[in-house]
């Protein structure tokens, strides 16, 4: 059974992002969920499925059940999922499967964390070492950025990618964030600003790294048929596929050829699209090297050519393929698994023509790619505003 066009995203919602000290993580999630429910124009009692992720600041054992309890809903399908940054994409896949099988009809996907004000920066940095292997990586003192530093160094070695090209990813997304009133960081930056910011883990500078935010997002997934009867223009899940190869970076078969190629081609086959068909790309961007690798893996640029693609401005709104038009995790917001959910929400808003100054003219087909761990777990979504 193909999931092609079986499910659609209807309402979407976000919390305020950045430093939001008047909200708990659950409170941020509830704010986003309320916005999504009101946007969809449905009643809370119509939600019969709930998927959420995990929280490093509020470590509930059964977060899915806690989320239902906090929101005051009692769905027949609920889970907390932990696939790192890939989680929101994987959730859309699972929601589509649950809807297509008749398990439930209306799934609330909601993820939020108060990573900026719910913990100190030292605590945030230390908590992220959980990505490393406790016995065979963490005794060597890696930071999470250094795990991606290994990836960047290898890509530079294999393909001649330059620090300036990495920096141009941050410059591009910051330019887009400047067009997005909701983004956390909106002041324009230059390549020199990135290169002169301090090293976090060579070859990555401070401005090569994503933000730490208080933030939550929510989307409501329902059947394609039902979505047509609701107020928001349906965004169809035309293709979706996952691929999981490892978790720890030291176990990766390659640092530049990842599971993203496999997940994307499966999603393209389901959707019957080619890489050159997309109007906008929303690519997981925890560090500047990541969208570069994803563009190459997804076939949106040739091998070793994505750095130049960003450097030449082709990824800007108005360019050949605009990337991360909301500002991405580098400039809009990043809070755990919520980071990639904003990519999905931005794709919906682009496909509905709701993006104002940052609207990609005539956007009809979007690709979203999210990854978790260190290029370990992948999910590609092909989203469309028509069936």
């Amino acid at each position, binding site marked *: 059974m193909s999931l092609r066009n079986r499910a659609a995203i209807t309402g979407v919602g976000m919390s305020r992002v950045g430093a939001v000290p008047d909200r708990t993580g659950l409170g941020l999630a509830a704010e986003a969920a309320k916005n999504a429910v009101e946007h969809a124009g449905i009643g809370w009692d119509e939600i019969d499925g709930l998927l959420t992720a995990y929280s490093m600041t509020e470590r509930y054992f059964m977060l899915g059940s806690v989320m239902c309890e906090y929101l005051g809903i009692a769905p027949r399908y609920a889970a907390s999922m932990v696939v790192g940054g890939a989680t929101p994409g994987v959730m859309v896949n699972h929601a589509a499967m649950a809807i297509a099988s008749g398990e439930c009809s209306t799934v609330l996907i909601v993820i939020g964390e108060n990573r900026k004000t719910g913990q100190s920066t030292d605590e945030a940095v230390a908590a992220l070492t959980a990505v490393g292997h406790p016995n065979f990586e963490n005794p*060597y003192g*890696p930071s999470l950025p250094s795990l991606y*530093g290994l990836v960047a160094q290898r890509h530079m070695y294999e393909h001649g990618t330059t620090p300036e090209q990495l920096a141009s990813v941050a410059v591009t997304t910051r330019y887009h964030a400047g067009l997005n009133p909701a983004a956390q960081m909106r002041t324009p930056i230059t390549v020199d600003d990135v290169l002169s910011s301090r090293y976090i883990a060579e070859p990555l500078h401070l401005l090569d790294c994503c933000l730490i935010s208080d933030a939550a997002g929510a989307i409501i997934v329902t059947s394609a048929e039902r979505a047509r009867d609701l107020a928001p223009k349906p965004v169809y899940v035309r293709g979706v596929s996952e691929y999981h190869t490892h978790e720890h970076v030291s176990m990766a078969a390659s640092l530049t050829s990842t599971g993203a190629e496999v997940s994307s081609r499966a999603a393209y086959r389901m959707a019957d699209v080619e890489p050159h068909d997309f109007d906008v790309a929303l690519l997981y961007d925890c560090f500047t090297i990541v969208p570069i690798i994803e563009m190459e893996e997804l076939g949106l640029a040739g091998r070793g050519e994505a750095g130049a693609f960003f450097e030449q401005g082709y990824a800007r709104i108005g360019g050949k393929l605009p990337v991360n038009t909301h500002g991405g995790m580098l400039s809009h917001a990043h809070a755990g698994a919520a980071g990639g959910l904003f990519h999905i929400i931005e794709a919906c808003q682009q496909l509905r023509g709701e993006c104002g100054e940052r609207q990609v003219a005539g956007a009809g087909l979007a690709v979203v790619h999210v990854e978790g761990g260190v290029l370990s777990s992948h999910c590609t979504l092909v989203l469309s505003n028509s069936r």
Partner: protein
Amino acid sequence: VSEGRLLPRPDADTRLYWSGAADGRLLLQYCADCGKPRFYPRLLCPYCHSDEARWEPAAGSGTIYSFSVVHRAPTPALAAAVPYVVALIELDEGIRMFANVTADPAQVRIGRRVTVTFRHETDEIAIPEFTLIEEATAS
């Protein structure tokens, strides 16, 4: 880089590996059926899924596959140790492992040859790490 590090906790999968390291030997686990080395040590061969294994000492030399220089320490306890090098080392036996390269970061390059040394932390725990093998100077 020694102060404030997290130490491994030997378990049923890895006790031989760590006891070897404490004795100054880098022991690798091999599949007794398909013969392939694997890292990290575990119950099943990830290639043929046999549960028969044997152990052999590694030669201890390898090549830097990639590296990063940590400037922002992951924990306050490591703040005094920066900058230090984390790396992926491809051993000559064909497995890849994470380790520190104890060298001036400016000298570290992908492709450089390295050899194992051991950092003794406690009576039971020594951590394999690597140093650069001096390159022959071109005449």
